[in-house]
């Protein structure tokens, strides 16, 4: 009897100790989680590193979940992130009768929408039956699709590539640029087919000598490869196979633009340094030359260009339509913040206030950032009108702008934190 009682006491004491232990462990974990989240949110990206909210730790679930959570906040950012109702008479893609369709049709991305909470390496719109903004996450190399109408974000690949510094996106082709042992490496892959929602991205290495690369509208690659002091312009299939050298250039530093009907090479920009742009075929034919701090955007399938000069003290933007004369646009910005639409329409982000001297040199080094607004440019009239004024304090330094094929949406990164944003052109 005494023995049973002792065993009972010991059992009860053990259970009580266990409960205390579990309680203490819970409190410890809670404090640690709070501390970790506190540090994460203060990492300086203006947003925290997303916590794993999804049931399987999915970044994709984090994306949609946290975006909506933040959208209900009260900060300036939160107001930009909130999801709105469809405009009168507007209906979401594929909306049909039924509760699910009704709920979907009521969800609508805001006009100025922060697509991601974490830095991205690159993004582009895909062409097809419906518009999608496809982007590559910088931390993981995962590929996501964002629906610009509904604001739905879906992760579509499950191949991990840590720390992707740059990415270029075609319809099914993705190029990722990473550092391997400190040296740049370029990887290219095609998104496979999938039945469970996540596809494998099989990447091929294109080597370490690639200076610049673009994915063409035909999903092949145009690249500049370094060979000693020379540069070779090469076209290849998406995986680097069937390379064809288009041109060998004995010296120079260039960036490529695929203008659809032709290839444009632009000398890399330095503030106050003369630059030139060329149409590249079997020879280099000058498009424009001797422009200080030249930056240029060529319109696809046309001879129209927007270009800017940076003489070290100020930025000036110009347009040249075909063989017509050059006209200056009263907008102090770099052509890198511009994107062509159809006809003679273009859209440019331009800094508020005075632009610091040696802009390109310091901007490329990440030493300065701008706060931009968006403008609609009529290149034929050489005029610019305000398209969208970004709320002051948002710190939007536009880079890598792209426009969707229908001309409804602009997407761009914020150079401060590499976040991805989208702007619906019509209100």
């Amino acid at each position, binding site marked *: 009897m005494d023995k049973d009682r002792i065993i009972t006491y010991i059992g009860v004491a053990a259970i009580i100790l266990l409960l205390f232990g579990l309680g203490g462990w819970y409190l410890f974990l809670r404090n640690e989680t709070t501390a970790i989240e506190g540090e994460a949110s*203060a*990492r300086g990206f203006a947003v925290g590193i997303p916590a794993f909210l999804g049931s399987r730790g999915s970044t994709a679930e984090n994306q949609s979940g946290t975006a909506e959570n933040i959208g209900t906040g009260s900060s300036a950012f939160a107001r930009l992130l909130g999801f709105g109702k469809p405009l009168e008479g507007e209906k979401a893609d594929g909306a049909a009768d039924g509760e699910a369709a009704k709920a979907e049709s009521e969800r609508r991305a805001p006009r100025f929408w922060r697509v991601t909470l974490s*830095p991205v390496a690159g993004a582009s719109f895909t062409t097809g039956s419906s518009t999608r903004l496809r982007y590559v996450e910088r931390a993981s190399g995962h590929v996501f699709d964002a629906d610009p109408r509904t604001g739905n974000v879906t992760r579509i690949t499950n191949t991990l590539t840590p720390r992707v*510094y740059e990415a270029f996106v075609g319809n099914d082709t993705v190029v990722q640029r990473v550092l391997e042992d*400190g040296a740049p490496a370029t990887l290219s892959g095609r998104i496979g087919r999938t039945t469970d929602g996540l596809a494998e991205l099989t990447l091929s290495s294109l080597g370490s000598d690639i200076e610049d690369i673009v994915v063409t509208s035909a999903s092949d690659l145009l690249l500049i490869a370094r060979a000693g002091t020379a540069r070779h312009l090469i076209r290849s299939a998406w995986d680097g196979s069937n390379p064809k050298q288009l041109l060998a250039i004995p010296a*120079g530093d260039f960036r490529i633009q695929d203008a659809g009907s032709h290839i444009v090479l632009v000398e890399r*920009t330095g503030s106050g340094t003369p*630059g030139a742009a060329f149409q590249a075929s079997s020879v280099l034919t000058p498009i424009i030359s001797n422009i200080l701090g030249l930056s240029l955007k060529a319109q696809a399938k046309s001879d129209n260009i927007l270009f800017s000069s940076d003489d070290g003290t100020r930025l000036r933007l110009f347009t040249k339509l075909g063989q017509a004369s050059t006209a200056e646009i009263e907008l102090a910005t770099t052509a890198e913040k511009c994107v062509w639409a159809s006809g003679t329409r273009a859209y440019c982000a331009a800094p508020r206030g005075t632009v610091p001297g040696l802009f390109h040199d310091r901007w490329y080094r*990440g030493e300065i*950032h701008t706060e931009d607004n968006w403008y609609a440019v009529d290149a034929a009239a050489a005029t610019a009108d305000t398209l969208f004024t970004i709320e002051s304090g948002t710190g939007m330094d536009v880079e890598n702008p792209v426009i969707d094929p229908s001309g409804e949406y602009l997407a761009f990164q914020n150079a401060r934190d590499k976040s991805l944003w989208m702007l619906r052109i019509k209100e």
Partner: protein
Amino acid sequence: MPLLAHAQLSVFFTREVTLSLSPENPAPGETVRLSLASYAIDLDRSTIIWKANGVTFAEGVGLKETSIVAGGTGSVTDIIAEVVGENGDNGAAEARISPSDLQVLWTSDSYAPPFFKGRKLSGANATIHAAALAGFTRGGTRVPEVDIIYTWYRNGSVIADASGRGKSRATMQGPARGTDIIRVVAETADRTQRAEASVPIIAYDPRLVLYENHPLYGVLYHRAIVGDVNTVERELKVTAVPYFARTSAPQTLSYDWVVNGFDIEPNAESPETLTLTADDYTGPAEIELAAMNPTDILMRSTGAWRIIFGGTSGIFTSTLFGE
């Protein structure tokens, strides 16, 4: 008789009016901006008539600036600007546009980090690789390089070793300080076509820029550490980038790190990267760095930054714009 095919600018000024072209040596098909200036005539109230080869292409009161597209290779366009002042003061200026299809491309062996979008500017004493691209044509086909004589100049002096028939490329040392003007004159062997072009090569002092080296995102090249920054991290890895240093890789330089007055032994494998561990310390970490090239005593660059551990706000929250 030799054709005048080079980018010659022949400006015959009246006493009152000057005409300038930009660029002075346009390429074929390039837009040339024409600007008038005068201290003797009020151009804003004058009627200005612009003529190209005798044909009026622009006219207006106060039209001091206009532009014209240069013709093709070998073409000559004579520009005349006639000024009729409101008080009967007249003036005129002339210029000739003779497009030069000669481009000078160059690159330097200075260092810039991976994926740097800008130009690799010429650090002091950097090696410059230049190439001249002449667009001479004969009978509709390009004149081969071996039929062109190239003469390279640096600040007006011929670079004899680099010049000669077919020598379209030149390798030279960039300036240690200031600016060198590299000029090249290309002329066909039969002297029927000639063009010249020049580029300034400016010597830039190497510049040390410090970046956070983030465990998830890598080196944050898009966001330099500028001035004072706060962080609530307890450990922070930073990487210094020696922009435009005369080196092929940053690891080949030697780095002297000093934090709060204490010398820090650099990491052997990546001396350009430093890990700051604060533990319980709160306060500033005063970082000083000197980078040197052991084989080039002229290459030395320094920088100083202040990272405040335990700050109330996150790193880089201060505006970096227009500092």
